């Protein structure tokens, strides 16, 4: 069960089937196809159509990468979370990273680690994000091929400092590979994280368990009520019964309040006589009901004596 949660995707790319085939060959089981949006959000937000006949062993998800520069532009995150399976934020400066960690509703925070970052990662900030169920992502793709020496150095340095700051918790690793050539097999990635400073178990968690948690949590957030309660069965029959009970309960209480007044006995008598007909005969009486009836009978007797 290996997950790769960041594969850049556009539907008209001819290389997509090859990339997916290669991912399946390497042993990945779940792949999130990501779409990146910079700056302004377009009017219609729908994920691009999934590729036709993907390999059978792959489960495909949709993901949105939203580049976050200033905190004022993220009003529609709630709409986005409904349209995509995963929503990732890519903060470009420290302020937006802080905002994303503490406030914004998303699933993954993915900082671009292949450039030189002018700030340090702080444990407090990142642990706030992790305790909210948001994971921090390391993308190994830009450091492996193509992007040159600087990207590789920055990636290693930033990944190491990220691992130091989070103390190895709550990190996921994904590829962000534009071509199939910069994908790597899961165990190679785990070894890479070992070299960067995670332990082997943590490295495996980063690509198996933590990513699974991200997917499961994201799904729970979208389908359930506040991420706590999910409706499995509507329970229609139970509902009808409770409604019937309510109907029965209502007139009785009215009667008991009326009987206290004792102003016009005739009216009360009439209503009492009509009552047992409406009642279900074979239902066992509750203790409360028995007491109420006893009281009513007492009042009845008193009323007769008076007349």
């Amino acid at each position, binding site marked *: 069960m290996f997950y790769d949660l960041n594969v850049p995707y556009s539907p008209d790319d001819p*290389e997509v089937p*090859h*990339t997916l*085939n*290669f991912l*399946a*060959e*390497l*042993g990945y089981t779940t792949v999130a196809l990501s779409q990146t949006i910079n700056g302004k959000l377009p009017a219609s937000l729908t994920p691009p159509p999934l590729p036709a006949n993907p*390999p*059978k*062993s792959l489960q495909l998800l949709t993901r949105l990468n939203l580049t976050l520069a200033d905190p004022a532009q993220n009003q529609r995150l709630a709409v986005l979370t409904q349209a995509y399976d995963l929503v990732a934020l890519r903060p470009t400066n420290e302020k937006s990273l802080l905002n994303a960690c503490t406030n914004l509703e998303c699933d993954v925070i993915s900082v671009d680690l292949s450039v030189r970052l002018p700030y340090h990662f702080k444990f407090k900030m990142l642990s706030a994000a992790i305790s909210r169920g948001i994971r921090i992502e390391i993308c190994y793709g830009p450091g*492996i*091929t193509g992007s040159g020496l600087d990207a*590789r150095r920055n990636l290693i340095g930033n990944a190491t400092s990220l691992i130091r700051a989070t103390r190895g918790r709550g990190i996921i690793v994904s590829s962000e590979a534009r*071509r*199939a*050539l*910069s*994908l*790597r*097999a899961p*165990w*190679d*990635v785990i*070894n*890479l994280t*070992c*070299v960067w400073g995670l332990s082997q178990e943590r490295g495996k968690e980063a690509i198996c368990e933590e990513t699974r948690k991200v997917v499961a949590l994201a799904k729970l957030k979208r389908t359930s009520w506040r991420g706590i309660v999910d409706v499995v069965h509507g329970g229609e029959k139970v509902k009808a019964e409770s409604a019937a009970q309510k109907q029965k309960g209502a007139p009785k209480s009215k009667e008991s309040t009326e009987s206290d007044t004792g102003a016009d006995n005739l009216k009360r008598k009439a209503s009492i006589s009509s009552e047992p007909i409406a009642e279900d005969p074979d239902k066992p009486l509750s203790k409360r009901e028995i007491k109420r009836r006893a009281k009513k009978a007492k009042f009845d007797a008193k009323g007769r004596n008076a007349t």
Partner: protein
Amino acid sequence: MVRLKSRYLLIDILYPDPKTWPTTNPSKPPNPQLAIHAPTSDTLTPGFLAKMVRETVSELYGDWGVGKLGGASAGGLNIKYLSPATSTAIIRCPRPSYRLVWSALTYMSGVPDTNNGGQKRAGTGRERGCVFRVIRVSGTMRKAEEEAIRRARREIVRVKDAEERGVLGGLVGVGDGMDVDVGVGDLSGSEHGMDCGDSD
């Protein structure tokens, strides 16, 4: 008596780039499963592979890394087995530094390529893009070899399966699982079994 301990890395070379796939039959697109495991050109010799790995280690880790690998006297880096036909190799390295070698392999992204057989391959210069995948890290060479044989057998069964299904169903499906149980009896000797692996 102190024993020098080492690790054996079983690796295979994968070719994900469709531009570098061998074109045997132009009318029919190649089976992607088979093409990913395409044979490597014969210019990749054990010595050359060792040199490539050493160079990458020195690029990544500098002199310290090369020193950790150890020279010829310390048992160093050694290619024990290389089969261009199946794109499989077994590399021996000292145990304390196997992660260096492994990460160097991860960072490598090309093997030398010549246009062998007079075939034209568009888009390739001298380098052919590839991915080195470490399949197994083992303490003894025997286990690495057994794993290689097991894998080769499984690949044969998978490809055959896919072809049969392709004939029946009209679509060449990609294998739906990595764990196809091999119920085939004794195929043949070890070397032979490995060699049939990917010769299309």
